[in-house]
């Protein structure tokens, strides 16, 4: 134990519970991985983090879109909660995800909205058999930079997948409940339980001795060896589709193995913050969303991952927000039919979601790292896959990019791009910032140049 404690001078109790409780952060610098410290972390050397935050059912665009453009833009009513980080925002108007449109497949815009949001792909309409979408940009980024951290990527969200019923007009729930897709057939399951997420990130600290820990690791390793061997043997006996199903298992084994290896490598250097989390799922939606934001911020800060997605809710979500004066279901309300009362409620919900975003950005902005803050070293994309919830259109999407991207983004602006510019052009521009250049993604037509 002593061995462990000497290396964790700052593993003191930190309380995350409750809505606006800020993290006490004196252990911040100590949380930097030893390797990073050895490098001498400077802003330019800080790793770049990517987060994608998703809100369902579109926005009331008249209140979302700033009326003025350029660096002197004024925050719109919906964006008011972001006043504290206005200068770190790049609001992008005019982007589109045209593969979320019907294209002959009829209704199902909510399923397509989520499925297409980060993939730019047109999901195959099916309730079950032969699910097919595209690979999402976060997973492409994870493929490129995920090997640097213990977690290739993190996927979180407030709403578990629906457990009964067909989700949207003949589309499997896999579509409306997942924005992150590892492969065209495999969505990345998201974690909805803050406590489980915490334990996954930092492990349960059960005061094991190094020997005990080594034995536990050996046990895990033999479990994984065996699992991989078993799956490989089974796989050769299967048909095409079955084999693809089992590939998910093999991929998972490989990923956990890599993570274990990294965990072993830095178990001694990284302290585990002791955090009180509610034992059950938070009942309050806002608290739930913010707790997950806290944990994502912590994971970024401890450099446990550099890629994350967060779904505030699944698309088509029909929860009500009576606490902010929107007593009917969100989806139902979003079909506002230009009724002023409904529009006002949609605005309230939109603002509520933006408040959660503001919380996350504010958190990143208070986390110092090297000579900057985590927000300086991040690119946070926020938006929805539907523009107006009433019309279900997928052009003119509400999209904003926050963070400095290690000095690669000129923020504090509202930029209107050419109508129907693919959102995937922005994704390519984000990908460029990893130092590698990809030629195309989804339905991209080029690299969005508006960032710098």
């Amino acid at each position, binding site marked *: 134990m002593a061995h462990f404690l000497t290396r964790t001078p700052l593993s003191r109790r930190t309380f995350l519970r409750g809505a606006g409780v800020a993290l006490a952060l004196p252990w911040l610098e100590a949380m930097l991985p030893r390797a990073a410290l050895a490098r001498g972390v400077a802003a330019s050397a800080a790793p770049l983090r990517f987060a994608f935050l998703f809100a369902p059912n579109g926005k009331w665009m008249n209140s979302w879109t700033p009326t003025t453009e350029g660096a002197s833009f004024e925050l719109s009513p919906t964006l008011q909660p972001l006043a504290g980080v206005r200068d770190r925002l790049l609001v992008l108007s005019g982007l589109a995800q045209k593969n979320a449109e019907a294209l002959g497949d009829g209704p199902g815009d909510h399923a397509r909205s989520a499925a297409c949001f980060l993939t730019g792909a047109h999901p195959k309409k099916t309730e079950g058999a032969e699910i097919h979408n595209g690979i999402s940009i976060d997973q492409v980024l994870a493929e490129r930079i995920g090997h640097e951290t213990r977690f290739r990527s993190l996927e979180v969200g407030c709403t578990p*997948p629906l457990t009964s019923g067909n989700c949207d007009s003949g589309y499997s729930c896999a579509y409306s409940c997942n924005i992150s897709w590892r492969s065209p057939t495999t969505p990345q399951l998201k974690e909805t339980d803050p406590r489980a997420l915490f334990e996954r990130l930092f492990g349960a600290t059960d005061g094991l001795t190094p020997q005990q820990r080594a*034995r536990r690791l050996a*046990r895990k390793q033999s479990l994984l060896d*065996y699992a991989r061997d078993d799956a490989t043997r089974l796989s050769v006996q299967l048909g095409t589709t079955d084999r693809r199903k089992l590939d998910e298992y093999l991929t998972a084994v490989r990923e956990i193995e890599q993570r274990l290896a990294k965990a072993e490598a830095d178990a001694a250097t990284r302290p585990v913050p002791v955090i009180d989390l509610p034992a059950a799922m938070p009942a309050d939606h806002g608290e739930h969303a913010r707790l997950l934001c806290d944990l994502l911020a912590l994971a970024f800060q401890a450099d446990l991952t550099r890629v994350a997605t967060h779904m505030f809710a699944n698309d088509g979500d029909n929860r009500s927000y*009576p606490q902010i004066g929107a007593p009917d279901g969100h989806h139902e309300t979003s*079909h506002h039919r230009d009724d002023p*009362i409904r529009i006002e409620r949609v605005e309230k919900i939109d603002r509520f979601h933006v408040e959660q975003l503001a919380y996350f950005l504010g958190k990143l902005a208070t986390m110092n790292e090297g000579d900057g803050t985590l927000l300086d070293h991040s690119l946070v994309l926020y938006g929805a896959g539907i523009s107006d919830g009433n019309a279900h259109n997928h052009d003119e999407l509400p999209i904003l990019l926050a963070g400095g991207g290690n000095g690669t983004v000129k923020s504090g602006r509202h930029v209107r791009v050419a109508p129907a510019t693919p959102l995937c052009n922005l994704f390519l521009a984000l990908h460029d910032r990893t130092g590698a250049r990809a030629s195309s993604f989804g339905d991209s037509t080029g690299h969005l140049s508006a960032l710098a």
Partner: protein
Amino acid sequence: MRSLLPSLLATALAQEPDFARDVLPLLRDSCLDCHAGAEPAASLALDGITDEAQARASSGTWRRVRDKLECGEMPPPDAPAADARLVERAQRWLAVRLGTGPGSWPLDPGRVTLRRLSRFEYAFSVRDLLDLPLPLAEKLPPDEVGYGFDTIGDVLSLSPLLLEKYAALAEEIAAAALPGAELRASAMRRFEGEALPTTLHENYGDDFGVLFAQGSILAEFEVPRAGEYLVRARMSGDQAGPDPCRFVLTMKAVASERGGTPELLRGEVACERPTAETHEWRGRIEAGRQRLDLAFVNDYYQADATDPGQRDRNLLVDWIEVEGPLDPMPPTASERRFYACGADHAHTRACLPATLKRIATRAWRRPVSELELARLLAPVDAALAAGDTLVEATRLGLSLILVSPNFLYRSEIDALPDDPSAQRPLSAHELASRLSYFLWSSLPDERLTTLAEQGLLRERDVLADEARRMLRDPRAHSLISQFAAQWLQLRSLAAVAPDPQAFPDFDEALRDAMRLETELFVEAVFREGRPLRELVDADFTFVNERLALHYGIAGIVGSAMQRVRVTDRSRGGLLGHASLLTLTSNPTRTSPVKRGKFVLERLLGTPPPPPPPGVGALDDTAQAAATATLRERLAQHRSKADCAGCHVKMDALGFTLEHFGPTGGWRDRDGPHVIDDGGTLPDGAVLHGASDLKRVVLEGDSFTRCFAEQLLTFALGRGLLDDDRRAVHALVTGYRGKSPSLEKLVVDLLALDAFLRRRGEAPRASAPEGR
């Protein structure tokens, strides 16, 4: 090939159905004007089909044609009537080809994709494998849903996150199933008196805990397992007055709020400090956190006593010890189930092969080869060599079995997996698995496994007898918790949130009672062999006091659900259940549309197409509600041509339930408006109230067919093919309007090729790479 006498040949040929002769004339005469070309009416193209081979290519088309002809919907009223003789001949052809008798097209048994266990199947399988009822389903994320169920192989996926949970759970399960030395060892704990809390305001202790007035000293400790323990207390006293110090030792489980505090021991402490004496109690203590309470019960204080040594009596506690468990621990249920060499847990390495082989055989639902066994034993032996105890190494073996894809996935191995023409009957073990996951959502029990090993299970009578046995088993409750709950979308009830201002009386107790009513009701229909039509129309239900109050049923007391006769004809049956009525409502009002849709989709198997994009929802503002009834507002909505087609039927069905409010209570008014429970169907028929709706639902075979299709989807774990629907149609037609019991239907479904056979996979149409 049929061999026919030459004299009969001519007649036989004349009777052999022939598309060109029997159907084509009708198509040309009455159908092709609309159902042809690039954009055929109702997306139904009938042109370009001229012979049997082309007709065979799509049996789904002909099911639609048959249904439309059967109910006389086609040709439409504004077109010239069809020639009755042509219709009759076509219908004869359709009946033969789409039937299951001689001349019918062979049925495609289909192919089920490798199925991962759902989280419930996982939990039930572990429960039955190890006799270990852990709450495992809650520890796994919800599963993806397809075709309304979470048993669909194509949809169920496995992410790294999930595999991590499986790995962690496997270790957790192994530890719980095979308790190790830490539970079995006896331990001694000593609590020093001066360190213990007391009920007095302070413990003045130095070497002793001091009870200077009447009060108690408290010691809490964890009991790892129930058993015999020794509790000892070493005490001394400051003696004064006529009597020695007296004490009472009691103990109580910390978690238990109620019940007395049993007394362990009472006695006297006569010695004077610093000497001390030890008192002890030996007896059974239950597992969990316990609190010992050692009370001083005869305080004495005379401040003015002349002898200073006679002024104050105090009880002093040196220490309290708890030792145990002293008795050997009997084998747990899991251990008895687990070890192959007798119930005694004192197993040996020599017993491991037999044990692991037995468990793997049941967990993987098939025989285990010697090679597989050797591969299981290798890491176990490696762990032993590295210093693990036998129990720890055995746990590893069990973890391996549980994390193996052979457990997590239900595989059916083909010799020619990628040849669609390679059909085969399932192996006996595959069949046992399909049967047990269908009826129990769990793995086959020993009897099924034995029957599979003996090759008997594939005999039709044996299979049917087993199904009957299994339906009577308590494990068949999964047909309620897994099948019915998903069929009726009952799981969504947990998330429904009626507006608290409009429905202040809606609470968790009511929500629970609603769910229980439906579960108990469906279970009664299933278990009592009642005709399935009673699901829609019955004269009984289950209520407790809370739900009875909600329904306006008098004379029910208590929170336990009780079976009651239903005298109100509109209540009996699922359509009168508050659960379904609530989950088909919006937070602030009823939704005749959702209710109508539920009836069409879940009870009649004819889901309406989804609404076109951009259509407005209903105006729900308070302002709108004040000026027009919901019915008037829906009528406005229907008046849009886009909406009318589907809404006429949905709304008509939904309106009949308008007397049931958004939480299922009875109402005569909706705000200022008097309830009108009438609805007009597209054919002009007028319905009033729930009893008319029930009549419509039970007309013909639709409900039975829909139920059978839902059950088959759940059982197979895949979406139904046209041929499956054809088989179900033929099956249900065979009931001739007599509603079957669940048992009858299950036994009949088990005889379908879709259940008994499988084929290789057809090559996929070239996958769209991000169109």
